[in-house]
């Protein structure tokens, strides 16, 4: 399952810049090895669902049914799925924009994702927020905001609540390579480390923050090198190897659960699509995307691994693919049928109290504020 040895060397001189060599983690815990065959097939299914759902979103985007931007995780499905798979049901994660797979593993449904993108009235945020920006504490995911790094302090606080209450729960927060440059990332990790809260932070190094290559993001050799600066362990793994991402995350989650405090994990992967669907990736060196597509696709690699190690047949996988396709088709039908939000719903729920704000007077059929107002008897007489 290893990528060819020259896989990153060939990229090192491009504008994509230096990228840490993916390393296969020594399987210390043997967690991945202990996964039963059906759980290993689940990993495949989540990755396939992520990709199929995103492909459907692309079709809907082209039909202008996705009203905002579309963010793909093509080529990064393994890091999202494998890491989230290491959590227990009671644990909580906060995804980043390319962690659709993590959310699906945590119980987000395709129809919810589709309704979010299509801004439907009964979408998880009732049309208030975009794409995968939504959460559900019961299922264990907290919606992100666009300000990168901000979720690190917030999730450190969620982890703090687990520590203060003595709850046996762990928090997983994702950031990209770009977010590691923010103050919020630093403050959050530092706070978590000092308080020794059960937080695992994954840095998804996919080579680019929008168009900015990692070499323009940090002078560090690798993002994982930041870990010792916070006094916490750091580990780097091949983000395109789903079992490796599961392995390192599970080890860090177990450590956090046992009271060992935070771990910083760098998962090395590659963003094969632009920042969002509109981005033509003109800044990417020729051949780079094609190389990763041909040689280091996480699903292709896992299919090969399953065949070699678990004797999974093409027919078995085709049956899973078909099931996923049916699920996405049904979800699409349901999402397309859903209505748009009632405009005045936007005034509800900014506070618990008052629960609803009033609309401006000119939206209520009153012709002027002055007309509505009472006046003193002397009004308009200019004699005071």
């Amino acid at each position: 399952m290893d990528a060819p040895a020259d896989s990153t060397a060939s990229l090192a001189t491009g504008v994509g810049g230096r990228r840490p060599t993916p390393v296969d983690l020594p399987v210390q815990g043997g967690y991945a090895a202990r996964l039963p065959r059906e759980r290993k097939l689940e990993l495949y299914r989540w990755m396939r669902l992520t990709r199929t759902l995103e492909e459907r979103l692309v079709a809907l985007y082209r039909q202008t049914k996705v009203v905002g931007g579309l963010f793909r995780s093509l080529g990064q499905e393994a890091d999202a799925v494998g890491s989230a798979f290491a959590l227990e049901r009671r644990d909580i994660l906060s995804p980043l924009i390319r962690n659709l797979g993590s959310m699906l593993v945590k119980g987000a449904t395709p129809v919810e994702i589709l309704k979010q993108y299509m801004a439907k009235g009964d979408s998880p945020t009732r049309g208030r927020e975009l794409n995968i920006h939504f959460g559900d504490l019961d299922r264990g995911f907290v919606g992100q905001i666009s300000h990168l790094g901000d979720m690190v302090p917030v999730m450190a606080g969620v982890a703090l609540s687990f520590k203060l209450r003595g709850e046996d729960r762990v928090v997983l927060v994702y950031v990209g390579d770009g977010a590691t440059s923010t103050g919020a990332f630093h403050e959050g990790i530092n706070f978590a480390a000092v308080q020794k809260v059960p937080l695992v932070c994954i840095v998804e190094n996919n080579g680019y923050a929008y168009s900015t290559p990692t070499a323009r993001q940090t002078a560090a050799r690798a993002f994982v090198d930041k870990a010792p600066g916070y006094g916490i362990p750091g580990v780097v793994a091949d983000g395109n190897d789903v079992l490796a991402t599961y392995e390192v995350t599970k080890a860090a989650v177990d450590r956090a659960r046992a009271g060992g405090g935070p771990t910083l994990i760098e998962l090395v992967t590659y963003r094969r699509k632009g920042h969002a669907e509109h981005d033509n990736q003109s800044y990417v060196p020729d051949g780079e995307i094609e190389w990763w597509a041909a040689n280091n696709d996480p699903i292709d690699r896992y299919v090969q691994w399953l065949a070699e190690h678990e004797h999974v047949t093409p027919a078995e996988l085709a049956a899973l693919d078909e099931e996923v396709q049916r699920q996405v088709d049904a979800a699409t039908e349901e999402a397309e049928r859903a209505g748009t939000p009632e405009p005045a719903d936007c005034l509800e729920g900014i506070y618990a109290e008052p629960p609803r704000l009033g609309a401006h007077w000119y939206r209520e059929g009153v012709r002027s504020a002055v007309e509505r107002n009472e006046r003193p008897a002397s009004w308009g007489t200019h004699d005071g």
Partner: protein
Amino acid sequence: MAEITYLEAIREALVEEMERDPEVFCMGEDIGAYGGAFKVTEGLMARFGEHRVIDTPISEAGFVGAAAGAAHMGMRPVVELQFIDFISCAYDMLTNYVATARYRAFLPCPMVVRGPSGGYVRGGPFHSQNPEAAFLHTPGLKIVYPATAEDAKGLMKAAIRDEDCVLFFEHKYLYRRIKGVMPAGDHVVPIGKARTAREGTDLSIITYAATVHKALEAAEQLAAEDGLSVEVIDLRSLLPMDDEAIVATVRKTHRVMIVHEDTRTGGIAGEITARINESCFEWLDAPVLRVTAHDVPLPYAPALEDFVLPQVRDIVTVARHLARY
């Protein structure tokens, strides 16, 4: 019952709420063993332990964000900013994350962000600020700014019990200068209700925080020297604002001035003026006037600070102009 200071009233509220609700905890810089830069949290760590009085790294965005996360999970964090001037370091976290959480993600964020605010103390540009107007413009936050010891306690208890994030501005000039006798029992002052600090019939001064006391002093002088009956409205809560109390005083005296310690442009006085204009313009006998700080960072030297900030004589001057209009 004995009088206690504005500062002690805040501490009393924290103690009572921490005793009442085990989910309440405090976080901030130097608030534990040291008891905080102004000693508001003195004795709390000894009483409630390190788990409920947490000393943090110097990272306002970090611990304000962490408070939000803990609040999502049902805890009730009370965060101290060592000086409210440093709230700007957490501006992104408060405006983008905290203020939007309920609306965009249906995540409750019951937390209090409190800190010593305001000038008249020779604190210079970074230990004297009144940044409340910057947050008035953010839907999803609540803002209170008490002027009396009784309100400091009652509003703190209300803020801790509120289901949303409350920014609790404490005026450091009032910390030890103002005293009050606390009402017996569970003293909670509702957020969003103004207080008539002095009844009057000739003109109204709408204000809050330290300038309530400047306005009361001015009213006393105007009564003695001019025979003017001045009403003083202490807003107490800035977001939500008590529109009914504002309209009532306009309709009563027909002449209104607004006094605040913050700078003028884009300030809260402008917002109040607009509300009066829209809701009770017809009841005015004079334009709404403002007494505020000058639009400069607050300088350190006494001669400069005194010139920049509103003084009693400024309020008297403008009130006389308003009464004559």
